[in-house]
């Protein structure tokens, strides 16, 4: 189990995405992995969140050589995602959105794409982190 308390005192970027192994999600997480060190250098952590299971996440991380953590919002399905308004009841998956939580656990910024086919560029994360 992972909670916000595990990131106290540190900025946290939550990356909600629809599904492991989908082409667009693969592109998105691969790009974020490429700049993960730069995000961490800004004093922030990045975690991915979807409704996939921990076993699915493990396979997805291995497939893409990801080191960033993926959280399984699997049971009860989408519980955390609903809290952040990221769960899409119609599709049973998360939308594609980013949320920046500060070291005190307060949401400071969020962004959701109009379509799950669109990927928020990593530049938006750096904009939110203040350069």
């Amino acid at each position: 189990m992972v909670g916000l308390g595990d990131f106290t005192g540190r900025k946290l970027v939550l990356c909600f995405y629809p599904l492991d192994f989908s082409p667009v999600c693969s592109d998105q997480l691969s790009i974020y992995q490429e700049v993960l060190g730069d995000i961490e250098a800004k004093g922030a952590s990045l975690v991915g969140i979807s409704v996939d299971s921990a076993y699915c996440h493990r396979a997805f991380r291995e497939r893409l050589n990801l080191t960033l953590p993926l959280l399984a919002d699997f049971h009860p399905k989408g519980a955390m995602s609903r809290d952040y308004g990221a769960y899409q009841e119609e599709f049973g998956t998360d939308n594609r959105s980013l949320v920046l939580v500060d070291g005190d656990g307060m949401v400071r910024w969020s962004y959701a794409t109009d379509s799950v086919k669109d990927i928020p560029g990593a530049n938006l994360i750096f904009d939110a982190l203040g350069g």
Partner: protein
Amino acid sequence: MSELTSAGVPPVGPEDRARGEGLEVIAYFDLACPYCAGSWLRIRELPLRLVFRHFPVASKHPRAPALHAAVEAAGLQGRFWEMCDSIYLDQGHIDDPHLWDRVRRFELDLDRFERERRSDAVAERVRRDFKSGIRAGIASTPAAFVDAERVEGNVEEALAVRAE
């Protein structure tokens, strides 16, 4: 990498790799990306001034950084485009021995190629393009820009229409 906040795609400069005549297109490619390889077959035939920028996504395509370094090193001996074409047209042969075969075929100096593809200067050249792509919001490849505006949709089809 330093600054990665949003910024427009940098204009074409003297260090860019460019070829052809016609509509100027700045395109970011990953040399180990199968989608790019498919697009390349069509894009290379279009009447464009194509500006090639490096965008290797190493986590997804572990071989990509080596391939981008290889084309830059080949470029230092005047064979950038030949190496690009060769890699995209034969994605099944991209290990080091296959690169050495290409070096021999293009009659390059193998020792120099080996030295330069591992050099800091080449790594920095590739990294600079990658960074500019991140700042421009690129999250998948190929990605193309005309007049600093992102080409939306299927890149090769959109460029084919615009090149007419």
